[in-house]
């Protein structure tokens, strides 16, 4: 999300064209320590997402 926020901030003047701007994610060696934090983050993020969807879907 930090990276996405950064991309949005850099490209804020092209907001109307965001859907045409490709975004790539290239993962590197990355230490296991970071991976475990990353996995936890993904998990928490999905938890929030599911909560949102549950709220809007009867």
């Amino acid at each position, binding site marked *: 999300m930090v990276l996405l926020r950064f991309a949005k901030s850099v490209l804020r003047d092209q907001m109307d064209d965001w859907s045409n701007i490709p975004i790539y*994610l290239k993962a590197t*060696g*990355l*230490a296991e320590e970071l991976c475990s934090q990353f*996995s936890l983050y*993904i998990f928490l993020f*999905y938890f929030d997402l599911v909560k949102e969807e549950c709220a809007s879907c009867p």
Partner: protein
Amino acid sequence: MRELPLDQREAIMQSVRSVLSTKSLCPFYFRDNFARVISGEEEAVYAWTSANFLMGRLLPPLKGIGDAEPINSTYGIVDMGGSSCQIAFFVPTQDISEGLYKLHIGAQKYWNLYAKSFLQYGHVSARRRHLQAIADETTSVQFDSTVVPRALDYCFHAGYSENVLNSVGTTEVEVYGPAVPAGDQYERCAEAVKALMRKSEGDFCVKAYHGECSIGGAYQPSIPVEKDSGFLGISSYIYAWTFLRMPSTASLDEFRIRAKEICSLSFSDVLLYYENMNLVDNDVSDYLPYYCFLSTYTLSLLEGK
């Protein structure tokens, strides 16, 4: 990510792709193949490209067609991350027996680069290899299972200790620095760090490639001498350079003198030293207990021994 087993790697990447495919979160144009784990060679080449672009060495030689003009000097890069480290440099003679990466930029020009990545040679993974070797050695002999076994490590600052699991994950060992800084602490740490370079695996390389070898048994062509050029250390090299307060063009001998001074600090002195640094831009506090190791390892990596 490259250190993880394939199934875990894929599971994480699938989660990432799902996030980036969700329009409410990622409004940009995304396809599944836009997110992937890159190879070590690609990582090396990206570092080389970024560094030379920023130093203004990349674009001028790209006029015309064919291979880039060798008269334009470029910087080689050494890149140290947490997990892996990379080296990449341009070889004007194009004499590269292995690890050649033809980097195309623009329509018709290309660079012949040597690019090599060493997995588990990043400073976090290297420290883990070092500590696990100590834990494995300690638990390989009989010990009293009612108490946590202990092992002395001269790469830890005096007064610092932490618990480390052995590589099979069955036993914890308390690894501790000496009670007071040892006079030859740097030398003792350097001796232990040597094993991490896995130079002994280079015997075959030396024979097969007539001595054109680096660390871990890897082939590396001779480094070309270019005018107005050299190597740039990037990523985690910054931590060591910043913490040791080295000028950006310090020699390895100058670096060694400072590394010896840092290794001779107790952990409480390290904390005090850091407080007095008053850093504004570079926060190097994450690795405070490990600066003796990091300095020694950095030097060992740069010297290849």
